[in-house]
């Protein structure tokens, strides 16, 4: 990989005649400006979603009702629903795909911009009404207390009022935005690579985005159909999910998870891509087993489409169906293992510098391993009969998302902020942010496995007194984690306003992909004449 970009030409900035002021952003068709807007959007909603999680943990800090009044249990469900949807659709996806994807796909493949710049603008601006509707749903009527999975019939006959309709429309808009982005990214990656950059020379971050956008393109229409049927069941008298009139509530679960399982890989594959770049850069070595790494992601994507019902082991499927989903789910662990071992092999023999992005990447590798192995436990349906809908599952998916995907986001941010802003973060603060987060998230999520083993169900506002010990620890952990998030906001503002200025390739010999050949900050227009990749 490393020498593949040797012949690339650096591009000079050149005068830019586009709109300025607010028009520059509102009308933007520039992949970098749109990427920046996505990153700011993700940061804002990350704080909002994080704040809601603190409210959840305050309520659960001790047995009995803490924050909410006795009897106000529905509000708790509204919090967990909003937290889940915001973190998935308004933090992780906008940051990894809209943010880093927009910024770095064109830079890495030597394209001047995305294939459809106006579509790109539209994708971003769909997110604003989507977010407004979701946040609005918290305040409209009683709020949507369905969980992020929005299972029927709780979401149909079980919820009157406008809140659930608003949440559904929010998902429609966010989904449309992602489908449009996916079309745009796929077209860009297939058609706008610089001469010489074959698919097999393409940086792994771009591979990760290619697989991710395919997953989105194929799974989101199914979600859209599923939630449209929710909408018509709610408002127009259809009965797709109403058993009494010939519908089937379990149909909704199949459709949701047909989207839902690929979606969880949508959240983590781009983080895989980032970690590959960071690990290679700071080890000063090319990535180990490049083709294996690329095709492991393709395999994860493909197999990810045929494992969805491992979320439904207690729904009453036939035993043979369960056996199939058990086997298929175990298979995913193989390509996932290949990723982990290839990262280790990349580091092996390297001359590793543990700058902040590398800390996040190494942290991600280990924390994701922990989440991955509990996933393997959960694949075993007889064991998951005990674990389903307990805190063990909550522990599992926070290890892969709050540590896997989110650590990937932070690795990417510290790695590229100099390229995006032209200014470098403060190393001491960055490391402090990493360690504070490590302590916070592990204190929060590790004890959840114990609560789950002891039998604590998820999505309850109050719990039997015996569960109080580990819940207290989790709550303290979450406050530390949130403090770390606030520290990040401070670091980000400080970097952008007064960070040290950096040059084109501030990481040195290990940083070999094309974005390091352009100035920092990357000029408004880059690669206007095609770089040639040997």
């Amino acid at each position, binding site marked *: 990989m490393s020498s593949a970009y040797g012949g690339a030409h650096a591009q000079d900035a050149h005068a830019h005649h586009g709109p300025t002021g607010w028009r520059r952003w509102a009308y933007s068709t520039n992949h970098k400006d749109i990427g920046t807007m996505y990153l700011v959007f993700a940061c804002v909603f990350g704080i909002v979603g994080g704040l809601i999680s603190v409210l959840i943990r305050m309520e659960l800090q001790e047995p009995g009702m803490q924050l909410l009044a006795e009897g106000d249990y529905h509000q708790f469900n509204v919090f967990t629903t909003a937290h889940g949807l915001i973190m998935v659709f308004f933090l992780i996806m906008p940051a990894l795909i809209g943010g880093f994807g927009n910024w770095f796909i064109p830079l890495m493949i030597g394209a001047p911009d995305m294939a459809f710049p106006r579509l790109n603008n539209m994708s971003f601006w769909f997110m604003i009404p989507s977010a407004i509707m979701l946040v609005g749903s918290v305040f409209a009527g009683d709020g949507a207390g369905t969980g992020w999975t929005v299972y029927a019939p709780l979401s149909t006959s079980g919820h009157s009022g406008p809140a659930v309709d608003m949440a559904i429309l929010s998902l429609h808009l966010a989904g449309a935005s992602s489908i449009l982005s996916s079309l745009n990214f796929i077209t860009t990656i297939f058609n706008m690579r610089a001469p010489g950059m074959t698919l097999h020379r393409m940086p792994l971050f771009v591979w990760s985005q290619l697989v991710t956008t395919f997953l989105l393109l194929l799974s989101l229409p199914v979600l859209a159909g599923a939630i449209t049927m929710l909408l018509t069941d709610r408002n127009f008298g259809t009965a797709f999910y109403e058993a009494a009139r010939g519908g089937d509530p379990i149909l909704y679960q199949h459709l949701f998870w047909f989207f839902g399982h690929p979606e969880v890989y949508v959240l983590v594959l781009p983080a895989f891509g980032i970690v590959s770049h960071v690990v290679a850069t700071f080890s000063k070595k090319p990535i180990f087993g490049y083709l294996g790494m690329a095709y492991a992601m393709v395999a994860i994507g493909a197999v990810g489409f045929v494992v969805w019902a491992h979320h439904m082991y207690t729904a009453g499927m036939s035993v043979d169906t369960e056996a199939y989903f058990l086997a298929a789910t175990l298979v995913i662990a193989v390509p996932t293992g290949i990723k982990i071992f290839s990262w280790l092999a990349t580091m092996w023999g390297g001359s590793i510098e543990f700058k902040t992005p590398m800390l996040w990447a190494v942290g991600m590798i*280990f924390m994701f391993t922990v989440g991955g192995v509990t996933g393997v436990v959960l694949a075993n349906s007889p064991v998951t009969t005990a674990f389903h809908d307990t805190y063990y599952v909550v522990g599992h998916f926070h290890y892969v998302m709050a540590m896997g995907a989110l650590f990937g986001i932070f690795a990417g941010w510290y790695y590229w902020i100099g390229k995006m802003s032209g200014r470098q973060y403060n190393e001491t603060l960055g490391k402090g942010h990493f360690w504070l987060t490590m302590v916070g998230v592990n204190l929060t999520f590790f004890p959840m496995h114990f609560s789950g083993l002891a039998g604590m169900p998820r999505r*309850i506002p109050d*719990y*039997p*007194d015996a569960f109080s010990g580990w819940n207290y620890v989790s709550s303290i952990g979450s406050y530390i984690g949130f403090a770390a998030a606030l520290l990040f906001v401070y670091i980000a503002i400080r970097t952008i306003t007064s960070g040290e200025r950096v040059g084109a390739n501030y990481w040195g010999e290990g940083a070999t992909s094309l974005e390091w050949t352009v100035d920092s900050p990357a000029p408004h227009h880059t690669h206007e004449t095609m770089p040639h990749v040997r």
Partner: protein
Amino acid sequence: MKMVRKAAGAFVAVAVAMLAMAHSASAQAGFGAPKPWQMNFQEPATPVMAEVVSFHNFLTVLITLISLFVLGLLLYIIWRFNAKANPVPSKNSHNTMLEVVWTVIPITILVIMAIPSFRLLYKADVVPDAAKVREWYGINVAGTIDIKAIGNQWFWSYEYPNERIKFDAFCGVGPIEGACFSQDATPKRPRLLATTESVVVPVNALVRLLTVGQDVIHAWAMPAFGVKIDAVPGRTNHAWFVATREGTYFGQCSELCGQGHGYMPITVEVVSQQRYQQWLTSKRAEMAVKNGTQFAAN
């Protein structure tokens, strides 16, 4: 293959031994509730749960070793290949042998894991007859009982169709708007776990449980039995258990069902045959008194 089969057999042996040990260790009645700072499963009260526990113990050892292996490699790499210790990076980026190894070894581990998993799945999921239970666990089954659990917002209703018994079980001592009294909580009747009426079953009986949802989806869960099954409107799900230990066992609804979701617990009392018969008699008398109560045969 044979070795794997043997390993699977070993699981059952360990599980049955564990169950026996649990029984002899505490001659007194079982109490199926979480304990403060608990870090593992509750003590199993059915042979299936005992197998789940031993299978899960195996899985936990396995995943701990894998995680420690990855952690160990990372720490070694950090120590050995940091820029100070190793100023000149190597350029190796391929090793086909290595890549084959780290594909094949995980596959082997997964196959070893899958075989006992499948066996346990087919045992736990398909409702057996008394002969099967005897064959698997050497338990002489004391009769077969059908119980229907109906999930309502926010309490469970139970029917014993063959006994013409039907009752509702609320959280604590009575329902108030989906909430639950906690004043009467005692160590034996824990808050948010004890119900107004218990499901009563005789020890060593084969209980066939049917679940259905009245309004939205609920899930009937009993950690010490290894049972969790959704109660879905418009379909009847089934599960089974043979509780081998007298005592009181608690569980909670395990599918989000609205605001009272945390307030519809489940209590099962496992009693001797004799006490079970007494309970049936008193329950039938109670039903007769409330002669307004209609029994709906499914």
